[in-house]
Structure formats: C-alpha cells, structure tokens
C-alpha cells in the first residue's frame, strides 16, 4: 500500500502536519492575551486578542490588522483568462480593467451560489481569485477547453487586511506614494523593501481599508513597518470576532453562514441563487456570453425566486440569534435569521436572514421569536423587525478619494 502510494506520487506525511501557522503568527502571538484561536483552512487564526470591543473600535475609529493569509487564493493565467473568468462568474468581467478588483459570486449550472469572493485583475491575462471556500475542483472543471493555467497560491501569499479611517495615513507614512489615489476596488503594486507589495482598496468591514499582499518572507517586516508608521494611530491586530461584528453591520454575506455553498449541500432547498441573496446587481444575464447558472437564472427571473435575503432592524436589545421569522406575531413561520449582532456604530440591533417569497419587501415588517437565556432560565420575546435595503453602516469615507487625512 505504501509503495503504491509512493509510486503514485502521493505524499505520505500529510497526516503528520498539524495546524499551520501563518507568517504573521509570531507577531500576533505577542498581542494575544486570552488564547482564543480557531482553525481556518489549514491555519490557526485568532478569534480575539484582548477584547472584542477594543478590536472592533480599532476598525471603526483607528486602524486594525486582520490576518487574511488562510483565505483561499488562486492564480489564473493564460490567453483565455478573461473568457474563463467571464464564464465562471455572473458579473461581466470584460468591464473589470487591469488594476481593478471585482466582488463576484459564482454558481453551479442550476444557478445556485457556490461561493463569493474577489477577483484581482493583475494583468491583461492574469487574475487572482480569493474566496472563503476551496475552489480547485471548481476551477478544474471550469478550465476544460480553455487555454488557461491555474494554481493555488494560498501558502505563497501573506495577506493582511488593514482597515480603519487612519489606514491611508499610515500607508503614506510607510512611503507608499500616491496610495491615497486608490479608489474603492483599485489595486496597485508598490515597492516594499526590494520586493513588490500588492495593495488593494478592498475589505470586509464596510469601512475605509486596504488589503496588503506580500511574499511570506516579508510578512514580519510588513507587520513591523505598519506598527512603526502607525505608532501614533492606535493600530491593533483584531481577531475574527471583531471582524464578524463589522461585516454584519456592513451587511456582507458570509459563505457557510448566510448561505451554504451549493456543492456542500445535500438536501433540496438548502441552496441559494444570487437573486435569493439580494445579489441582482452582480448578475449580468445579457453580457452576451454563457456563464454558469445563466439558463437557470433566466428561468428564475421568469418564474420567481423561492427566498428573499433580508437585512433587519430588530426592535429591542436582544439579538435575534438563531430566530425563526414570522409573518406576524404568533403567525406563520416564513424564514430565519442567519447572522445577528448589536451593531455598535449603527447603534442598532441588526440581523441578516432569509424569508420565503413574497415576504420581506423593503419597508415590510416581519417578526422574530427570540429565545435568550438569563442565568440558565430561558425567556422568549417577540421582536418586530423592519426590513431595510441599505447597509446598517455605510460611511462616506469608505468611498471618499483621497481619504480624509489625519
């Protein structure tokens, strides 16, 4: 058996590999006061370094660093790269020029969402795809008949998300000249200690912020340079919990939480189409070329969707965690919440969730039945929820170019 595996070139020692540490691990560990970590992909990442409040407010009020290295990253390259991307995702990728990043979703043939992510157009025929879930198998079947090569580069790229109102100032302090001219979803290469650093004005917080990618060798140097340049700006590393709070407040979807990747579901009705996730703006049915899910989505437009994604402003101060949604108090169950939070900057009790069509139009009211525990005693409360169409948090600084100086 061992010989067979060796002959087939299968690595024998994969089971010896314990959890991986990102190139930022040692630096992050210096900040760790509560020892709360979890596994993301093959890596260990921090939930919270010290306090979720301090970390969340670093995102909104100063500058925060979140280690993005475990995010799945793929390089796609070749003469057919644009055609490949355009067939993979629902957006019209011919509109995304070199130096731009696109937020995208991609579907299976049934028009059900596999994952969302970002596509970086690095060159005329070269892209980077970043996503929550692993995509190699999906890329492989999509590449049949296309002149492209693709490979995973998760481990080869150290990535960090740098978010907060003073981040631009700090990047300028680091000597990245003209970084303030980056518009939302722009990307640009800069020199960094003899290497190139990729800076994009992107993020998952709904705030001003950037994502920085370098080779793992330069990770610690980058970390140190940021803290050096930002020593007067209260920079701090943040864990996943603070980021989660910020992304719910910004109304962003999370794969595996707000929807399940269609290729990971078994039961019918547990997948979601782009329309059922409120992503109409990402689907370009008339882009003139075939893309995955196109035929099914045309049919869905004709015949109607099953669900509607809703952003809810929930009455009261009890978060609507794991709550059923009803058409009226004690009425018919029409859906459920998927992500909830007390949104500190919006100062609202918010929830993301789904309801069956035709419920949940903007301005409609639905009801959440919220269970909560106080000292082992369970209580129940009915909360009125207003369906809103705008993100709970969407500051002007997210888009303002150049960003305000500090």
């Amino acid at each position, binding site marked *: 058996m061992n010989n067979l595996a060796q002959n087939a070139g299968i690595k024998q020692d994969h089971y010896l590999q314990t959890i991986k540490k990102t190139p930022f691990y040692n630096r992050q560990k210096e900040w760790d006061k509560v020892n709360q970590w979890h596994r993301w992909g093959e890596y260990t990442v921090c939930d919270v370094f010290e306090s979720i409040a301090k970390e969340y407010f670093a995102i909104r009020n100063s500058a925060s660093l979140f280690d993005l290295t475990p995010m799945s990253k793929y390089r796609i390259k070749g003469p*057919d790269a644009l*055609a490949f991307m355009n*067939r*993979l995702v629902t957006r019209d990728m011919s509109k995304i020029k070199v130096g731009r990043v696109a937020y995208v979703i991609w579907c*299976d*043939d*049934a028009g059900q969402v596999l994952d969302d992510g970002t596509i970086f157009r690095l060159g005329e025929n070269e892209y980077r795809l970043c996503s929550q879930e692993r995509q190699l198998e*999906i890329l492989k*079947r*999509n590449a*049949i*008949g*296309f002149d492209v090569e693709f490979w995973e580069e998760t481990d080869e790229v150290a990535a960090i998300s740098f978010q907060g109102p003073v981040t631009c100032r700090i990047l300028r302090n680091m000597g990245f000249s003209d970084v303030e001219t980056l518009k939302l979803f722009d990307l640009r290469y800069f020199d960094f200690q003899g290497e190139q650093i990729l800076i994009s004005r992107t993020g998952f917080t709904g705030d001003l912020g950037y994502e920085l990618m370098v080779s793992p060798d330069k990770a610690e140097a980058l970390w140190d340079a940021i803290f050096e340049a930002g020593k007067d700006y209260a920079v701090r590393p943040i864990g996943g919990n603070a980021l989660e709070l910020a992304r719910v407040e910004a109304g962003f979807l999370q794969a595996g939480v707000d929807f399940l990747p269609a290729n990971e579901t078994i039961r019918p009705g547990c997948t979601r189409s782009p329309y059922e996730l409120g992503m109409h703006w990402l689907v370009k049915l008339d882009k*003139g*070329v*075939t*893309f*995955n*899910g*196109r*035929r099914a989505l045309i049919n869905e437009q004709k015949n109607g969707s099953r669900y509607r994604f809703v952003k809810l402003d929930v009455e009261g101060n009890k978060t609507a965690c794991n709550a059923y949604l009803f058409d009226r108090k004690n009425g018919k169950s029409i859906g459920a919440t998927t992500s909830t939070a007390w949104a500190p900057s919006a100062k609202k009790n918010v929830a993301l969730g789904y309801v069956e069509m035709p419920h949940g139009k903007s301005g409609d009211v639905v009801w959440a039945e919220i269970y909560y525990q106080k000292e082992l005693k369970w209580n129940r409360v009915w909360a009125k929820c207003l369906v809103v169409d705008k993100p709970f948090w969407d500051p002007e600084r997210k888009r303002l170019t150049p960003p305000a100086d500090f």
Partner: protein
Amino acid sequence: MTNNYDILIVGGGHNGLICAAYLARAGKRVCVLEARGSFGGAAATEAITDKCRASTGAQFLYQLHPQIIADLALEKHGLRYARRNLPTTVLATDGKHLTINHDQLTGENVSAADQQAFSEFMDEMQAFAKIIGKLIDQPPMDIFDLDWDDKINSVKLGWALRFGLGKTRMRELLRIIGMTMFDLADEKFDNDLLKGALSFDSVLGTQFGARSSGNVLKYLFRHALSNKSEMDLPYGGMGSVVNAIEKSAAEAGVGLRSNAKVKSIDVENCRVVGVTLENGEKLIAGTVISNTDIRTTVLDLVGSRHFEADFVHATTNVRMRGVAAKLHLVLSEAPDFNGLDPELMKGRLLIAPSAEEVELAYNAVKYGELSERPLMEISIPSLCDDTVFDGDSDGDGDCHLLNATVQYAPYALKGGWNDENRAELIERCITQLERYSPDIRGKIQHVELLTPLDLEKRFGLKAGDWDHGEMALDQMLILRPVPGSSRYNLPLDGLHLCGASAHPGGGVMGAAGRNAARMILKGEAK
C-alpha cells in the same frame, strides 16, 4: 445555392437523414452536412478491393424502426433484402454447431430441456423487449417536469408493466434487469454454445463481459425493436439502406451536401446561429442538430465555453470506449466450417463457444490488451448478395467475402495501435477462425482490418464507439447522454442532438433521429 436554412444537421448518418426527412416533411427547410463523400456514417457499403464492395461498418439490419420504414416509404425508395430472418449458428470446433432460429434450437447437443426452456425464455424476452420498445419509441420523460405526454406515457408504461406483462412476468423482469447474462443463462440452460451466444449478444460493442452486471438490459435493448429477433442482410449492404433513406429525404426536399465537413457550430449571444465548414463557407440556421456524438459536438464543434461548467464536466465523463474491430477477408472459395450446412452459412455465424470464453476474451480488454481468442460475429454476404463481387480476382467466379465483427480489441490499446499489433490481431483472428475452419488460411486472398481507431478515423466514431456512448444503465434513458439533456435538447439555445449519443442509443435503429424530429417540432408548436 442558398446558405440559409431553418435547420442544419451536422452529420449524415442514418439518424441525421431520418431526422431531416421527418423535419422536411413537416415543412422545414433542412440541409444535412456530411464530412465524407457518401452518407450513412458507419452504415456503409464500401470498396474492400477493387472488385469487392460490402458493409464495412454495421452489417446486419435488425433494429430499423418499422414505423420509419413505413413513414419514409423506404421500400419504395429501394430498400431490399438479400436475405431475411437469418438464423444464428454458434460454431463449434467439433462440428456440432448450434443453430438458433428465433426460439428453436437445432444441433447435436441440444437437450429437450434446453429447447423447452429456450422457447419459454424467448417468449419472455419478447414480452420484456416490447416494454423496452415502448421506452425506445418516445423521448425519455422529464421526471422533474412532466408534461401531459410524459404523464400519459408513464401511465401507459405502468399499465403495460403491471397488466400487460402480468404480475409474475413483471416480477421476473425486475429480477433479471440488473443481472449478468452469465448468471441468467447459467440458471436456465445447459448448452455452452447457447450460453455463449446469449452472452455475446449482451456484450457486443460494449466494454462488458459475460459477468458484467446490467448486460441483460443491454440484451433486451438489442431485441427491443426487432420483431421476434429477426435479422436481415440488406441487398447491396448497409449502404443501400442509407441510399433508400437518402432518396426519401431528398424527395421530402432535404438539402444533402456531402464533402461538407463542419468545422464549427457557431454561437452568437448565447444561441446557435449556424455552422462554418472546413472550407470557410458559412451556413445560417437558427436550429442546428448534431448527428455526431455529444463529446465531439460540445467540446470540438461548439466549444466548451458556450456551455456551463457542470454540463461540460458531465460531457467529458461520458464513457466511450470502442472494443470491436472489423475484419474483411476475401476468400478464393467459400469457407468450410467443419461441415456446416451451406444454407446456414448464409445466416449469422458466431464464435462465442461459451459464456466463460466470452468472459475470458473480455479479461484482456480490461488491461488494454487484445483477446487471445477473439469473439466473432460473421456474415458471408457474397453467398446471397450478387452485388458484393464485381467479377472475381482469380476469375473462377467463386470468391467470397467473410465479414466479421471482432471483439475484444480496445480502442485504447496499451502502447497504441501500430503495424505490429494490427498484424498480431489479424493473426489471432485467423488462428481463431482456423479452429473452426481448418483450411481457411489458404483461401485468404485479401485482408482488411479496421481497428476501433480506424473506425474513428473513417466514420468519425469517437473512440471507435459505434454507440456514441456506452450502452450501460447509467448512460441510458433519462441519463443519456447526460442527465438533464436526454430530450434531444442541449443546454444551448438552438442546439439539438439526433444521433446515437441521444436516447435510445446506437444501432441502425433510427429512433433517435425520429424522436429528435418529433421533439423539435413539438418544441416549436408550444
């Protein structure tokens, strides 16, 4: 010449011609584009030597849909038979051959018990085949979105299963449908030659052995359209059948263009707009029907980028793996098979001496090798068809052609096909024939071997698979060619399939072409 049609058909095999004829009779302007100089695909009569012409692909006619023969008036257009209701003789090395004539067995070693059991067996098989025939005759149901025709058909099918067959036979059908012919034949009969013949008919053209489960279903499919298992030899070879279809199509107004190889099926704004020929000529039509296999259609002619990824992936997984070669031997005089009655030599001859031998021959192909003792299905058309020879090569007027389908010779032969292993296969075939006809080697004047690779090159049969996709349960009915595309529509507006890749699959049946035409006309009526 116009280059603007309602419908273009890519590939002038029998299904393409039949589909075209039906559509033209419904008033469509149809043109069939054939890459070769003649129509018919692997149903062809071609020169073997400068004086000998015969069926180089398929050789027996046993499945052509009777409704098609009637609808297209094929007999009026020249369909004739050299000989009908051919008996099948399973050759034995000791001369104690077994002849099967519908449900009658003749031969020295046939027991009364086997004779009795075989009559009952054939009666039962005919009843089962009739049920399968109902499935063949209509497009597969769309089980997720049944229309009224589907609902009526499924009720009819259920009725036929339960009340047509009766409780006992329905149970028997359900018992045997997933079985191996090895076990089923073993259960019912003693005679090895009979078990060999039944096994052979369950594996012909498919990478199955006697012990491959589900080959009983393949056997039933084979008989589904042949009334009482009749087999005929068309007069003038299989090419003459196609000539009749061609004439009928032409009379209906179908444009027929040979030497018109299609380079690409063209797509604009996510729908088919026509085709481009190898010579650069463009033809325009809103509907293109492909008579070639699904993989060639999707990956080579249209291009994977015009389809969604899961569909493309499914397409690449359609199993196509030809395992049969054609051997044509021009003989200086009629062969002698250990004293076989010359009348029976005009029938179908099998070398499949037992179910074990079928399985043994199959063993090799699993590993990409040639069978040591290949199985053969043989006709000697020159015994009953005066068109085969145009004068003898040696001038004494008694030349004959031995036309054999040889199994197993894998398309994906280990190391690839070359002169050496071609010679090896010919030698193994002749050695095998010598076991049954000891003096045959001295009579051979000319040998032509068509390996599965040659069949691909000559007839465009991808991977040498004349079924355009293995006829196995997971690639039949609503799963053929891939789930979701079983109703002759491919997931690209204006593109359809009408060939063997589509339900009900390979064989000179014509059902795929006819069903496709009906579905396309029905789709337009909506």
